[in-house]
């Protein structure tokens, strides 16, 4: 590798303990569809970085939220770019998770001993959708408000526990500033942390079990 890395490696020996994973053999009949998972992960990294940058100017309050989003988009240098990157990466993240799932399904990589990794993967997908739903409210404009109104009302139609669950998610019977703060917290703290932990498990299992050659 490069000079800089060699300098670092000669002092901290970061390469040696990971040799097993760097130099592991990969089945010969792979194609580019096996990249979908990695692409989705790259989008996750971009989402984390652009989200961190957005959180510096975003204000999660009933009065300030919309104003701060307008400020990010119009006033702050490259704010429109960071916001755009976050928005498009979110869509592409979901799309590539779906493509990845299709690839895994087609190549039958979900079969034993990899059942649990399928479960973890679908959990990540569900949490990613939840991240999308909670993030959609944060601009606090008309579209965001009514989308959340509809979304939380749909939860309310679940038999027996529906209403209580709806109040629990929205922090009340209707979408208010409380909902905004709840969704903000979920979107930037709870859900990314959960995805991070599950991704670590997901990759760890792949490293342990290797890439499926069951096809």
């Amino acid at each position: 590798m490069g000079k800089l890395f060699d300098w670092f490696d000669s002092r901290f020996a970061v390469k040696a303990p990971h040799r097993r994973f760097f130099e592991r053999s990969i089945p010969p009949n792979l194609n580019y569809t096996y990249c979908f998972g990695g692409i989705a992960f790259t989008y996750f990294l971009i989402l984390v970085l652009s989200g961190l940058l957005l959180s510096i100017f975003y204000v999660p309050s009933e009065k300030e939220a919309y104003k701060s989003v307008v400020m990010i988009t119009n006033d702050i240098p490259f704010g429109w770019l960071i916001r755009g990157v976050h928005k498009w990466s979110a869509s592409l993240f979901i799309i590539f998770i779906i493509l990845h799932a299709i690839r895994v399904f087609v190549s039958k990589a979900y079969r034993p001993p990899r059942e649990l990794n399928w479960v973890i993967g679908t959990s990540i997908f569900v949490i990613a959708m939840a991240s999308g739903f909670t993030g959609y409210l944060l601009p606090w404009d008309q579209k965001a408000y009514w989308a959340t109104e509809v979304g939380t009302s749909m939860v309310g139609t679940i038999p027996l526990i529906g209403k209580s669950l709806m109040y629990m998610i929205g922090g009340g019977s209707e979408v208010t500033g409380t909902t905004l703060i709840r969704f903000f917290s979920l979107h930037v703290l709870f859900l990314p942390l959960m995805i991070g932990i599950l991704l670590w498990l997901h990759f760890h299992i792949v490293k342990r079990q290797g890439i499926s050659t069951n096809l």
Partner: protein
Amino acid sequence: MDRRNFLKRVVKLFFLSLNLSLIIIISYLYPSKIKQKRLLNIYVTDEEFLPKKGIKRFEYSFDKDGERVTNFVFIKRDEEGLTAFSPFCTHLGCLIRWNNIHKEFICACHGGRFDKEGNVIAGPPPRPLERMPIEIKDGKVFLGIKA
């Protein structure tokens, strides 16, 4: 160029182009509005209330960006004329008070002490007390405040 070297170059170019995003991120994070501080002339009191000789504490208020700010200042009069001392200790910015018995300024936070000229007598303060511009116009005392 073989395939391996070509791919190596592509990867290097990719990481090099990442530096471009660093420029974008820095210009995104750099504050767009940095307010320059300017010297304001604030009315403190009338000349007749000033001490004939010695140090007295005066409170004053003024509007800063639509907000009412209240603070105080120590004004000294002697043979040399008027001197205004900022009430902030030069150590960490606690508010000092004037002890008229020992004739010295005392900062309660870390025991900093200044004499009536504002010079450090004891404690951790690194510099003498800050002096503020002061002037009398038509019997009114004005203080120069950076805000």
